[in-house]
Every structure is written in structure tokens, then in C-alpha cells.
């Protein structure tokens, strides 16, 4: 038996198929994974992501600690309510985890980390925190529900009093606010608009049922994975990990090298990488034809070199297979992928594959005209 979120009994009562995910018992799907995917692209769906770690960092040196810990610069969070995506790196520049930092107020930040890594993250953070005047509190009392899709924000607003609803709907992207018992953040992992809602675990069941009643359907990890991959978002442990650095993981934009005097962990190694250039890169692949790209498949590129797929799936929106692959830096054009012993041609593309419902459309269809 794995760890359970406050919504475990509700998932069971809704008939979810539960699977082990990083030591947690979580829903894979409630019915059709494809229907759940389409609901998020077209209307709204909700996900239990309470397995993710919510870590409050408080104290006089909270900002200084996070400036050391994270490769993006929390000094960008100049007003409470702003959020920032970034990575914690090890001394070798490898990614310990990717995370979102929320600025709660003076000397108070909230860090949301991946579920599969939360224990290791907490240990890493506490080890790094020993030289700073900070406390790290794991908010095991909170549940985390993602409500995602073009109608998601409006649906959440329907549960709020008029003044609160207006305030919630006025939140900008990557902004958050405490509204009653809800900490509402306009963030997500699907490529759609929406909120991630942190709330007392005991209230999670009620919020979920009310959103279900409004027509927001329950979605599992299966749809979450196809949605995030269409959106070109990395999954920790697959597309990057402690052995890969941000510049070979399409995460260079999250590394803040200015100001130069900020000595974040891993900085020295990343400066070396920048000076010498990355040998590998993470690219998008689209398969022209039948078959499904899957993690671990070999990618053959020009010059007899090889890479491999880090995440692959069938894209329900594009109706063809898409993937992220780590390949030699010079890779461009087309590659061959070894799918169950057959070599199939795939096109190297720039993610995202799909963005905000307005589908980018297949990049394959425009291949002949470019």
C-alpha cells in the first residue's frame, strides 16, 4: 500500500483506477483517459496533485537561502503573490528537482516540489539550509488540486463570493492569492489556463464534489501526462534528472546568470557548460504515421550518432505520436526511431506541440512548404 492523499477515498468511490506513482496511490484515470484529456483542452478538468510537496520557507534569511538554492532568481519576486518556476541544482549543475516558488509575504515563501522527489528534496533543502536563518515546514495539512482548461478559472470562481470571485479572476498568470481558506495560484502543468488550489486537506473532498457538480470532470495522471507532453513540459526523472543540466533539458531560460555575484548551487559548472557548449539537447519529435514513441526508444541521427526518447506518447489532440528526446546537439531535420525493432522516421520539432487549446497544428503538415 502506498501513501494516500486526502482524496484517496473519494477517488475510490468515483471508480478511479489507482496506480503506484512514486510511492503514492493515485488515480490513473476515472474512465477514458482520452476523454479526460479532451475535457481539459475544451472545457475543464480537475486533478489531485496532493502528492506534490508544499514546503513553506520562513525566516530572516529565507530569500538569501532560496537565492542560493535555486538557479532562477527569487529576487524577481518583488511583490507578494508572484510565482517563479525554476530548478534546484546539485554542485555538478544536475537538476535535483524543478519547482515553483510563491512569494507569500515578508520573509515567507512557498515552494511546491514533485511528489516522487519530495522526501529527497526536503532532505537536500534542510542540508543546504543549515547555514541560513530559515525554517522549512512541510505543509502536510494541505491538499493540492489543479483545475485546468479554458473554463477552469470561471468554474472555480462560481464557488466564491462575488467580491472574491472578481479578485480571483483578476489574478495574472503566475500570480497567486490567499482567498478565504484557498490559496489560488494561476499556474498549471497542462498548457491550459487554470488554477492550482491549495487548501486544508479536510476541505478537498467538498471542493472536488462541487466542481464535479458544475461539470468539471475528474482527471487522472494518464491525462495529466499527455497534456503536459503536448504542452512541451518536462517531467522530472524522465526528461531531466540529477545527471542532466538545464541547458540540455530546454530549461536554460530558468537559469538566471544575472546578477553575476549570486552564487547559486551549480553555477560554476553551468558557466563551464556555457563556455564549452552543450553536447546534447532536448528536442521535440513528431512521428509521421502509425506507431507510438515511448521513453527509452533509441533515436538514430545523422553521422551514426544516437540519442534516446525521454518521454513519448500518443497526442490525443494531434492524433499522432509526439515525444521529447535527448540527442546530440547538432541534430536537426529528421531522425529515425527504433520502435519495437522497426526504424521509423520522426521530425525534429520545437515544443510545445499544442498550446492553450489553440492547437499549434501538426508541424508535419507544413513540412513540404518550408
Amino acid at each position, binding site marked *: 500500500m502506498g501513501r494516500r492523499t486526502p482524496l484517496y477515498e473519494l477517488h475510490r468511490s468515483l471508480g478511479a483506477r489507482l496506480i503506484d506513482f512514486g510511492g503514492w496511490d493515485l488515480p490513473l484515470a476515472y474512465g477514458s483517459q*482520452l476523454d479526460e484529456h479532451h475535457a481539459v483542452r475544451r472545457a475543464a478538468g480537475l486533478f489531485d496533485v496532493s502528492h506534490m510537496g508544499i514546503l513553506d520557507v520562513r525566516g530572516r534569511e529565507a530569500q538569501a537561502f532560496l537565492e542560493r538554492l535555486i538557479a532562477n532568481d527569487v529576487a524577481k519576486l518583488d511583490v507578494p503573490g508572484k510565482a517563479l518556476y525554476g530548478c534546484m541544482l546539485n554542485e555538478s549543475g544536475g537538476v535535483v528537482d524543478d519547482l515553483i516558488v510563491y512569494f507569500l509575504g515578508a520573509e515567507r515563501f512557498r515552494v511546491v516540489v514533485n511528489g516522487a522527489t519530495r522526501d529527497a528534496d526536503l532532505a537536500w533543502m534542510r542540508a543546504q539550509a543549515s547555514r541560513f536563518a530559515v525554517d522549512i515546514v512541510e505543509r502536510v495539512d494541505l491538499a493540492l488540486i489543479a483545475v485546468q482548461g479554458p473554463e477552469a478559472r470561471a468554474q472555480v470562481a462560481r464557488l466564491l463570493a462575488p467580491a472574491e470571485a472578481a479578485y480571483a479572476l483578476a489574478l495574472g498568470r503566475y500570480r497567486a492569492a490567499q482567498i478565504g481558506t484557498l490559496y489560488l495560484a494561476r499556474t498549471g502543468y497542462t498548457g491550459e489556463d487554470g488554477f492550482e488550489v491549495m487548501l486544508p486537506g479536510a476541505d478537498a473532498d467538498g471542493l472536488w464534489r462541487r466542481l464535479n457538480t458544475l461539470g468539471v470532470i475528474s482527471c487522472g495522471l494518464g491525462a495529466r501526462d499527455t497534456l503536459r507532453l503536448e504542452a512541451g513540459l518536462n517531467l522530472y526523472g524522465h526528461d531531466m534528472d540529477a545527471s542532466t543540466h538545464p541547458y540540455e533539458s530546454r530549461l536554460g531560460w530558468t537559469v538566471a546568470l544575472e546578477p553575476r555575484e549570486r552564487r547559486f548551487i551549480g553555477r560554476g559548472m553551468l558557466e563551464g557548460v556555457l563556455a564549452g557548449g552543450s553536447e546534447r539537447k532536448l528536442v521535440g519529435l513528431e512521428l509521421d504515421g*502509425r506507431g*507510438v514513441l515511448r521513453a527509452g526508444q533509441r533515436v538514430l541521427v545523422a553521422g551514426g550518432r544516437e540519442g534516446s526518447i525521454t518521454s513519448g506518447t500518443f497526442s490525443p489532440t494531434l492524433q499522432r505520436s509526439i515525444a521529447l528526446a535527448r540527442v546530440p546537439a547538432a541534430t536537426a531535420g529528421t531522425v529515425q526511431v527504433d520502435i519495437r525493432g522497426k526504424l521509423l522516421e520522426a521530425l525534429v520539432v520545437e515544443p510545445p506541440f499544442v498550446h492553450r487549446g489553440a492547437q499549434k497544428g501538426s508541424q508535419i503538415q507544413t513540412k513540404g512548404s518550408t
Partner: protein
Amino acid sequence: MSQVPADLRYTKTHEWVRIMPDGLLEIGITDHAQHALGDLVFVETPEPGRRVSAGEPYAVVESVKAASDVYCPVAGEIAAANAELASSPERINQSPYEAGWIARLRPQDATAVAKLLTPADYSKLIEAEGD
């Protein structure tokens, strides 16, 4: 709880067999199998005329999660394949025993079907697998 129609025979690898009036065998994967696989997105059906032995992979079903071989329950020659599955693989999810049939087989030995699992045996098998 998965459906296990009483008029079919089954294999341990979750295929079903129907004896048709003309003596051909219609074959496919069970409700339990489609449920375990999840939403199917591609089905690779066999070419008519192909000879297959019992236990040989004759088709591939690919879901969002994984690709899986489908094994032939008895030896024979492929007489027909369900062409609808190329454009509508979800037929197997929606109707595994009717619209989701995969192939029709001319059996080498018509009595081989009698050696397959009965509905009662198959029900016990999937119950043991936690259906």
C-alpha cells in the same frame, strides 16, 4: 467487473474465440484485457492469407500506455481482418466482443477450440488477477 460472454472460449493471455456458423473462428481480446490496456490508439491487424500457429503474435494493440502483442488462440490461416480498427481502434474498448473483433481465422484443427478455457475457467483466472 469485466464481461465474460458465455458463448465464447478464452486463453490465459486474454484472447477470446467465437465459432461462427461457417466454421471460421472470430478472435479478439477480452473486456478484461481492453480495460487493463486503457484507451487504444493503434491496432495492427494481420494480412489475410497469413498462417499463424497457436500462441504466435498475430496483431499488435497499442494504447496510450503501452504496445502489446495479441496471440493467436489456435493455429490456422487468417481469413479476414477487421479493417474498421485502422481508423477506429476505440471499437475494441467500446465493444471488445462484437464491433472490436480483430480477425477471422480458418482453423487448422476445428477441435482445438474445445481445449481452450471455458467462460467459468476464464472468470476464475481474471478474478485471481484482481478483476
